[in-house]
């Protein structure tokens, strides 16, 4: 009886409404995110069996020892972080002017049109876009054949294809909208009178940007960095297609371990390790910028 009335009272509170509203999403997240993640963490502490997909239920930290001591994983992880950092830098630095232009120079009634146009790349499959870049940058691609037919070069350029640069270009293009949007939102929130105040207090347009606009846009920049950096570390399609399998990143080796070599425990431990490293890198980045993120309004 007591429990029944308590339950009855609880169902009428705003908190209950809140829980009721998020429960489908929470259930979905739990089932499709937490459960697989838990499985991967569980597998990473198990022992590999001889059979296909066979895992022996025997706890060990051997997988982690391999993952953290074998130089191949360290090299691939470092390369992944290096590529992701390059991609993030390129994306955010290129996205900022676009976001700035839309926020400050596009008339308010045209802003949504511009944002809509920026999402156009999403209309095609990511794979198609990656292949398009291969067509453009490839050995016999648009750029090379174009330059050769113009007589500017005699032999195809190799530094634009099958290398880290090509991967960076492709990924930076793919993630551009993700970087533009958070920066745009942060710029939109800046009270324009703050910029006038900067001018009024003796600063030029440029110094006002450094002292007012950029610090206030930092929450958006931080968001953009995280949104670009975290998924690119785990990207394996682009290095596979653009790099022609010659420049594997950490995700490629995880895929190989899981499905190719069929060592799920080791693959899992590399995956968990990579996740921890990316998480730590992201956390450090957020902490460095903490003073910008505290500002409300």
């Amino acid at each position, binding site marked *: 009886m007591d429990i029944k009335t308590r339950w009855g009272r609880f169902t009428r509170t705003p908190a209950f409404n809140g829980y009721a509203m998020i429960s489908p999403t929470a259930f979905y997240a739990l089932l499709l995110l937490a459960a697989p993640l838990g499985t991967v963490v569980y597998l990473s502490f198990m022992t590999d069996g001889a059979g296909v997909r066979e895992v022996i239920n025997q706890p060990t930290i051997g997988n982690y020892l391999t993952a953290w001591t074998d130089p191949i994983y360290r090299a691939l992880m470092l390369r992944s972080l290096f590529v992701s950092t390059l991609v993030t830098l390129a994306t955010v630095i290129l996205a900022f002017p676009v976001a700035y232009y839309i926020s400050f120079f596009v008339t308010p009634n045209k802003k949504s049109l511009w944002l809509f146009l920026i999402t156009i790349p999403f209309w095609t499959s990511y794979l198609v876009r990656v292949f398009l870049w291969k067509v453009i940058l490839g050995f016999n691609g648009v750029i090379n054949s174009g330059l050769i037919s113009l007589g500017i070069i005699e032999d195809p350029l190799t530094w634009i294809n099958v290398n880290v640069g090509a991967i960076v270009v492709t990924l930076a293009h793919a993630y551009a909208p993700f970087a533009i949007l958070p920066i745009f939102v942060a710029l939109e929130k800046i009270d324009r*009178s703050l910029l*006038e105040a900067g*001018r*009024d207090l*003796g600063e030029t347009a440029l*110094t006002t940007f450094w002292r*007012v606009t950029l*610090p206030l846009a930092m929450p958006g920049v931080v968001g953009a960095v995280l949104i670009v950096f975290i998924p690119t570390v785990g990207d394996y399609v682009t290095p596979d297609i653009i790099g022609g399998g010659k420049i594997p990143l950490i995700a490629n080796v995880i895929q190989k371990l899981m499905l190719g070599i069929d060592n799920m425990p080791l693959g899992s431990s590399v995956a968990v390790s990579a996740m921890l490293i990316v998480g730590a890198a992201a956390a450090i980045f957020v902490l460095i910028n903490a*003073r910008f993120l505290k500002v409300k309004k």
Partner: protein
Amino acid sequence: MTTRPMIELKDVQKYYGDYHALRGITADIRAGEFFSLLGPSGCGKTTLLRTIAGFEDITSGVVMIDGKDMEGVAANQRPTNMVFQSYAIFPHLTVEQNVAFGLRKDPRTKEEKAKAVDEALQMVGLKGFGKRAAHALSGGQRQRVALARALILKPKVLLLDEPLSALDKKMRENMQVELIRLQRQVGITFILVTHDQEEALVMSDRIAVMFDGEIAQLDDPETLYRLPKSRRVADFIGHMNFLPAKVVDEANGEIDVDVQGLGRCHINAKQAPGTNTGGEASIGFRPETLTILYEGQSASDRETTGSVEEVVYYGDMTYYDVKLDGVADPVRLSMRNVPGRPVLDRGTKTRVAWSPSALVLFR
């Protein structure tokens, strides 16, 4: 003190596309005065202020500050500083950093600058607030930070864009007094933009009343209140009663008018400050220039009769709408509620004292 004015505006015109925002503003603002731009929203007062600050280019005309033509001089190069309507306090900085924002190029040492910041904060009554985050301040405190941030640069002119409109009534009245005190203390020319006529009257040495991109009248508060040049100005500043009138005779600085309900009046030509537009004439008078006569009292000048139609009690004052005999619309008059003076009921027949010397003629 007949030095040249701090700000000279000569036929300043401003167009936004087809919209004519400023239609030939000509005015001199004296050094060290508290000057107000008063008018309804859309009258161009803020545009004029932003023009002086350098945020708006003018289409034609001249803006001189301290004898220098401001043509082509950017906002950051002008000897003016502004207190914005939204205060524009930098949310990512502390109070101290906000106040010190404009001191970056100041050649003084760090210690001297810190001392200046402390002094500025003390001046606006925010001593000890330096380390606080700016976004955690209340509206009144932000305003003070904005003031300190502008005044620390010792500008020749301080521009205030409706600085008090976001504050509640009590706070606003306190800040009005503080701003006057501050202005006297620092001796800087203050230019205030406001739509609040009371605020302008209380604070200003002189007021420019603006309508439709033009200055309708520029005078000290008392002249503006007692001798408005047009019905529109009279209506905008305080309350004014209007009665239809007819000019009968005009000679030697004297005017004879026939006023509905009040009869033939003899007034001085100074009581017709506006230009003669040739339109229909009317007589205006403020509520406090009429006095209800209680039993046994007699008028010192003239009196007329009427009946009380509406009573509005304000505590210190009572406003009466009185229908004067022979006048179509009731007129408003105000009486101070002194002891022994009862508040009249509606419908009471009463005698009202008035004087032709308090009338203003519009024509």
